[in-house]
């Protein structure tokens, strides 16, 4: 009993095997191995193993090929060369019709395995196997196997969405229909009807799936198993690489936002990895989502917003980079000349207006830091944007975009000794605070609302849900208690400052 040609194929790296013609399902056995065309063909069956360019010559000649294809003992031709070879289609079809498969093994030493009929898989070859798989790629290898075996191969993601497929349309449709109907039940490698669903198992990543016919000859099954194993291994490696890449990016983003880089050159070089030109100055914006307004605080919302922003940026705006950090979205906008505050606010407003309606219900707020010509100061810009955002969200609830420069006197208050601030504020507001405490009035709250709405009575009344005359009455009482005239600019500034200090301690 001879040895099966197909069984030996399993012991070569899958990426090294190229089926130049289709190969039948039935095992092809041989008892003789010839390394050149013999004068006489002895034995019952033989394979021709060619491993140099010279011996390949006959395959370029139709007449010689025709004679060879008629040799009854010849059951297969193995070509063991590393370089790519192309033969005339007519010659290939001739051998295929005669049932003589031609297989190229991209390894010039491979003939030894056929000569000695080696049936030993060396695990030391795993690195070569994997490297070959990565170099050649899943798609090419799976396509070659599909053509050689005349079978469909389908590749599904973790949600059973079809990523890729090869084979006859009818078979593919049939496999897809089956997977769609049964996908909820599929949890591991399983046979469903005519198809086998192979689980591409990975750690820290949901499984992907490969679908092939369930009934295959043993040798084809072994090669498909190898394909499944290598694809899983590759997915795991990709997952690890993605995770490492993400970690390095997170670290860089953290450093960028919290640390003045010691060398701008280093920062610029690292930025290039992510496609950011940090050689040029950038504005920095922080987009914050208010999850309290009926939204679930999950990363999904942030991802959705990121996706929309990326689409807008890709289609309409240049030199803008977006990334998420600490449940917020950071935008870097390249600007050589330092656009004015109003221009930058307009740009952000345009960006937000381009979003779909679901984001326009007051759930987005944006903080903008100052522009610095030196990008190593982006960390300062980030802190400023955060401060502007915090201040805006606490004091200017009618707006959605806050610029650090809009903080006004608050920026000065930070530098004054808190004792002095408290004394100043209390001197003006103590009487009101006492009244609020003793009689339940809300004089300080009213003044805070007035300051927040720039002393526009109608707006403050609307925001406080009271009539504007009520506010006017309260203001008159306040004027009387504090012995000030709020129509007088000096008095107005003093009271405003006292209120701002009072609010400053609360934010």
């Amino acid at each position: 009993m001879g040895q099966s040609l197909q069984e030996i194929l399993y012991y070569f790296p899958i990426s090294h095997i190229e089926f130049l013609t289709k190969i039948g399902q039935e095992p092809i056995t041989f008892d003789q191995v010839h390394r050149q065309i013999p004068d006489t063909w002895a034995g019952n069956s033989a394979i021709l193993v060619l491993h140099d360019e010279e011996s390949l010559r006959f395959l370029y000649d139709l007449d010689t090929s025709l004679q060879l294809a008629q040799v009854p003992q010849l059951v297969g031709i193995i070509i063991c060369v590393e370089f790519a070879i192309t033969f005339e289609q007519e010659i290939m079809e001739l051998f295929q019709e005669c049932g003589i498969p031609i297989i190229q093994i991209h390894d010039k030493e491979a003939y030894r395995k056929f000569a000695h009929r080696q049936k030993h898989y060396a695990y030391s070859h795993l690195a070569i196997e994997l490297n070959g798989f990565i170099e050649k790629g899943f798609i090419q290898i799976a396509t070659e196997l599909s053509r050689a075996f005349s079978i469909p191969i389908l590749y599904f993601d973790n949600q059973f969405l079809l990523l890729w497929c090869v084979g006859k349309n009818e078979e593919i449709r049939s496999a897809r229909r089956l997977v769609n109907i049964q996908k909820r039940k599929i949890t591991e490698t399983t046979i469903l009807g005519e198809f086998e669903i192979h689980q591409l198992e990975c750690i820290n990543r949901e499984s992907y799936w490969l679908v092939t016919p369930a009934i295959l000859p043993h040798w084809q099954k072994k090669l498909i198993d190898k394909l499944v194993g290598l694809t899983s291994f590759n997915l795991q490696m990709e997952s690890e690489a993605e995770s490492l890449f993400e970690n390095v990016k997170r670290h860089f983003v953290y450093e960028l936002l919290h640390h003045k880089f010691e060398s701008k050159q280093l920062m610029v070089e690292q930025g290039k990895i992510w496609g950011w030109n940090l050689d040029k100055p950038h504005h920095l914006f922080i987009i914050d989502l208010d999850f309290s307004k009926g939204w679930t605080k999950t990363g999904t919302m942030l991802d959705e917003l990121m996706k929309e922003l990326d689409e807008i940026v890709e289609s309409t705006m240049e030199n803008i980079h977006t990334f998420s950090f600490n449940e917020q979205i950071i935008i870097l906008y390249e600007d050589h000349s330092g656009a004015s505050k109003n221009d930058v606010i307009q740009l952000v407003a345009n960006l937000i207006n381009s979003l779909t309606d679901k984001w326009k219900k007051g759930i987005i707020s944006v903080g903008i830091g100052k522009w610095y010509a030196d990008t190593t100061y982006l960390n300062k810009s980030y802190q400023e944007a955060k401060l502007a955002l915090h201040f805006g969200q606490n004091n200017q609830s009618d707006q959605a975009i806050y610029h650090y420069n809009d903080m006004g006197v608050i920026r000065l208050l930070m530098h004054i000794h808190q004792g002095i601030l408290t004394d100043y504020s209390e001197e003006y507001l103590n009487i009101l605070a006492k009244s609020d405490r003793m009689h339940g009035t809300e004089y300080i709250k009213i003044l805070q609302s007035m300051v927040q709405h720039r002393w526009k009575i109608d707006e403050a009344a609307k925001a406080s849900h009271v009539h504007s005359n009520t506010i006017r009455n309260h203001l008159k009482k306040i004027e009387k208690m504090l012995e000030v005239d709020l129509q007088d600019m000096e008095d107005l500034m003093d009271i405003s400052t006292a209120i701002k200090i009072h609010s400053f301690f609360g934010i």
Partner: protein
Amino acid sequence: MWKSIPEPINKIIGGVMMSKQYMFYFDMDKCIECRSCQMACYELHGGTGIHYRTVKNYGNKGNLHSLFLSISCNHCVNPVCVTVCPENNYRKRQDGIVILDSSGCKECLRCVSACPFQAPKINPITKHAEKCDFCFERLDNDLKPFCIENCPTNALNMVKVDCKKDIPEIEHLEIPLKKFSKPSIYLFAKRRKTTMYLREGEK
């Protein structure tokens, strides 16, 4: 100089927890005003004439009901010093520690006045601002900060918390911008019900 001591590479690549940060924990009920923390810190930093850590007294001297507060830089989640320093000398490490590169300081005093805790102080010799660095060199060698190690009653300690979830708003102390800056100190004071002001304890 902090520049010469990079964070260990495993902290960078090995899945660093960026949201975790160190935080001081101070139990005011346990503090006996021995000032060991203050003196240990002073000695460690070479007796430069400035105290990175000070102990404040809330009450009359000798009063059994006095409360004490040991305070230094509180390594805020959003440090105001980073915003105000024109030389951009401050940075926040991934473990939350705020570090000042004093070598670039121009003695503008902005951080000194802006810090709610007056943590940065001008070194009279170098004329540069300096402040508590949470003994990060010791931390990198798995040692606790010197002030914590020298507290005999365990009133001063440290914890590592998730800065997105676990940093409570500082109670008992009235300071500006605390909701924004989120100082990384947890004050425990069972006996204290009213608000304290940092300036009360100034001597």
